[in-house]
């Protein structure tokens, strides 16, 4: 069975590219455009990995990540933060609140796929 990935971003064009990229790699994909929708989709879609944008309306990626990590039932869920903010403090913050990886935009599609596979490969 294919791994499920939830893509969370408020930039439609980024969602389009990520969705295409991940589908091509054989993953099952769902999409959310803001933080609240992301949490709802995690419940309904039950992804194995979340590609999570940081700067979003309603709830930021940090808040979504914290909410997810607060739920012990989802301990196995992988979280990859995707952000256009590349300062060291922001990377550190993302990792500190429980993200498995932190990828800065613009990213290399090849590298991203490798990271995702690594994270899911162990499972």
């Amino acid at each position, binding site marked *: 069975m294919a791994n499920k990935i939830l893509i969370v971003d408020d930039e439609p064009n980024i969602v389009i*590219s990520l969705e295409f990229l991940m589908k091509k790699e054989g993953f099952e994909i769902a999409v959310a455009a803001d933080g609240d929708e992301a949490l709802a989709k995690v419940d309904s879609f039950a992804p194995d990995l979340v590609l999570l944008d940081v*700067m979003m309306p309603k709830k930021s990626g940090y808040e979504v990540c914290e909410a997810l990590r607060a739920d012990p039932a989802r301990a196995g869920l992988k979280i990859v933060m995707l952000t*256009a903010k590349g300062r060291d403090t922001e990377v550190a913050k993302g990792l500190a609140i429980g993200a498995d990886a932190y990828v800065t*935009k613009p990213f290399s599609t090849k590298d991203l796929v490798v990271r995702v596979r690594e994270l899911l490969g162990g499972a």
Partner: protein
Amino acid sequence: MLSGWFVALVAMAYLGLLFAVARFGDARADAGRSIISANLYALSLAVYCTSWTFYGSVGRATSGGLSFLTIYLGPTLMLLFVGVIIKMVRISKAYRITSIADFIASRYGKSQLLAGLVTVIAVVGIVPYIALQLKAIAASLDVLFAHSGGAIAWWGVDSTFLIAAVLALFTILFGTRHLDATERHEGMVAAVAFESVVKLAAFAAVGLFVVYGMHDGLSDLFQRAAASPELERLLRLDSGRAGTWTALIVLSGLAIVFLPRQFQIIVVENVDESHIRRAVWLFPLYLLLINLFVLPLALGGLLHFAGQPADPDTFVLTLPLSQGAEGLALFAFIGGLSAATGMVIVETIALSTMVCNDLAMPWLLRSTWLRAEKRQDLSGLLIGIRRVAIALILLLGYVYYRAAGEAYALVGIGLISFAAVAQFAPAMFGGMYWKQGTRAGAVAGLLAGFAVWSYTLLLPSFARSGWIGGGFVEAGPFGIAWLKAQALFGLAGLDEISHCLWWSLVANLGAYVAVSLHTRPDAVEASQAERFVDVFRHAGRDAELRLWRGKASGDALVGLLERFLGVARARQQLAAYARGRGAGDWRALPVDAGFVQFAEAELAGAIGSASARVMVASVAQEEDLGLDEVLGILDEATQVRAYSRELEAKQRALEAATAELREANERLRELDRLKDDFISTVSHELRTPLTSIRALSEMLHEDPRIALDDRVRFLGIIVSEADRLTRLINQILDLAKLESGRAEWTTGEVDLGQVVREAMESLGQLYRDKGVALAADIPAAGPVVLADRDRLTQVVINLLSNAVKFVPGGSGRVAVRVAAEAGRVRVEVADNGPGLTAEECGTVFEKFRQGGNTLTGKPQGTGLGLPISRQIIEYFGGNLWVESLPGQGATFIFTVPLPAPEA
């Protein structure tokens, strides 16, 4: 019936009570819990009210009417100059002044000559005053015993002599009980405050008895008095005696500080400068109360004893006795005794300190006997000298009383003393406020004043007593009429007191000023003058310390202290001094100028500043500083003060500059933080479109098998994101130019209506595509403003494209209106979009903030359009803002000022 023994017993018991109060006060002072409060201090000033007040005021009122009041108006006025008194106290505390003689001597170079002179004047001047107290007690006893017929045989001894002896004994117990010979006596102050209350109560009791017991209140008494032409005169103010009034007010005003007992209480015994401010109103209140019943008593006595031989000076006793009120009479006697005792105790203690420090010590210090006894503790000797002095002063008072007591009424004697101490005024006030006053001047002034006083007041009083011939009063010495003792240089028509005051002060002040101006002070004088006159500025004592140069042995100084203060007290003071300098042990202290000054001040507290100076000089090898050198140091001190003020000012300026710099730095930091944030935000905004471009182009590049329609879609996205990136970069650069002021402007006359029409036209297609209605209300010939046409177009297009972005497709409506109003053109762009909250109305003008994106998803914009537009409008002197409510659309408005009409 008052028996003689009973009266004597009550009197002794009362004195015992005073003594107990004093013991209590001393005990508390020794325990470090002083009972001297502001109220107690103010009450103790009432030692001013002696038996002269108690008996004599009534006597004076029977002849002089209201003039008795002058003696109390003077002090009240003097206390108004509270700053003078505070300065006196400050100086005295700083230099451990022990008496008024010490004060004057210390100011004029610690002169033994001056100290002795002032002491002699004080003793000669005050002895009659002490005699007066003895006379008052004796007279009051006579009245009591004459009434009762119960005079007891005093073992054949004169009763007045016994009184003097008892008072001497009490004074010795009060003032010299302590073995340490310091200048302050808290127990005595407490006792004096207590006796002040007693005498006030006694006097008021008799007054109330006369007014309400013997008459039907004040109005009854005054009506009866007014009925008699003789008494009616007393109730009127006599304008013919205005000169006398003035003289008496001046005299008593000076006496309140310069009488030795007053100086002792006000200055030497003061423990806290703040107490003076209380005394300024409380003491005059006391004087008012004690004078309230003087006139009623005088009138009541004159009415009651009309036609009988009765001494008005004893009305206070005879009036109650005449009504059989023996208890009240006894109370009045105690009141009078109290007043006399208080005065005698304080006055003789003050005088004995002066006699001991300023007459006996200088003589002893020169005697070979004292040199022989080098190691002996002299504090006991000091106490002994004071005790002998007390006894001698009272003996002198008794002798004067026997010899001259009958010649004058009570008030007459008191005024002689007042006039004597008034001679201290020029040297005192001059010393405190005039640096040019010299020792020679002070000596000359005092001698001149004292001579005139003796010739015009003292000797005539002797003549009146028959001791010497009265020819120099009646006809002038050797028949020279213009030297008549009480009409000098033909100045007749004044009463003797005014006459004496006028001529003595003229001579005194004249000699003081004239001689001062013609003499040069020596080094010590000059430095003392500086210290006294500038006492409030001498907080830092650097210059002081530099005014002493020499070598001294610590052992010798400590030896001096132990000799004069006693070993225990000397050790105590040394330890306290060492603590003050942060040393554990005084033996470890260097024997420097500070140490010498400490020792000299301590000695001054015991033996007066002049003797202390001599003693210190005897054990230290002092370098004589010449006058020029002293003046140099003092001058330098003044300059240093000026420099330090300048320095302070500079430091303040520097601190202000530092604060400004810090603020500027803070602002820079804030700007730096803002710039950092801005760059972070800009990079975020640039990375976002770049992300799509990179991801899509990488996929297209790597996978040639992507379906054609996907390729077309992806390339479309890449193109539009590249376009967005370009716009973003352009706007960032544009904004940076605007903000840094480097933007280029082409300013000319612009038809704003035309600009808006063109902008609407260029965006027409966009509106039509989205199905949004665009309405316009623009004058045919639009208002013309001075601006950059392209920039204004940029603003209008920004507003129009924002509006179309936020209104719903199909039902959206946007209305544009251009109108000229007072001095400006107003352009409105109103839409029927989702509207903005009050908060958003502010934030939409911030960089990279995009409002109203919840309904339509992420709006396509850079977030820089409105900030740029606002910069442009503000450049032209206008405003750009938005008015909106959520759900009711938004109206963006900008104004541009119309050019001023040409004159």
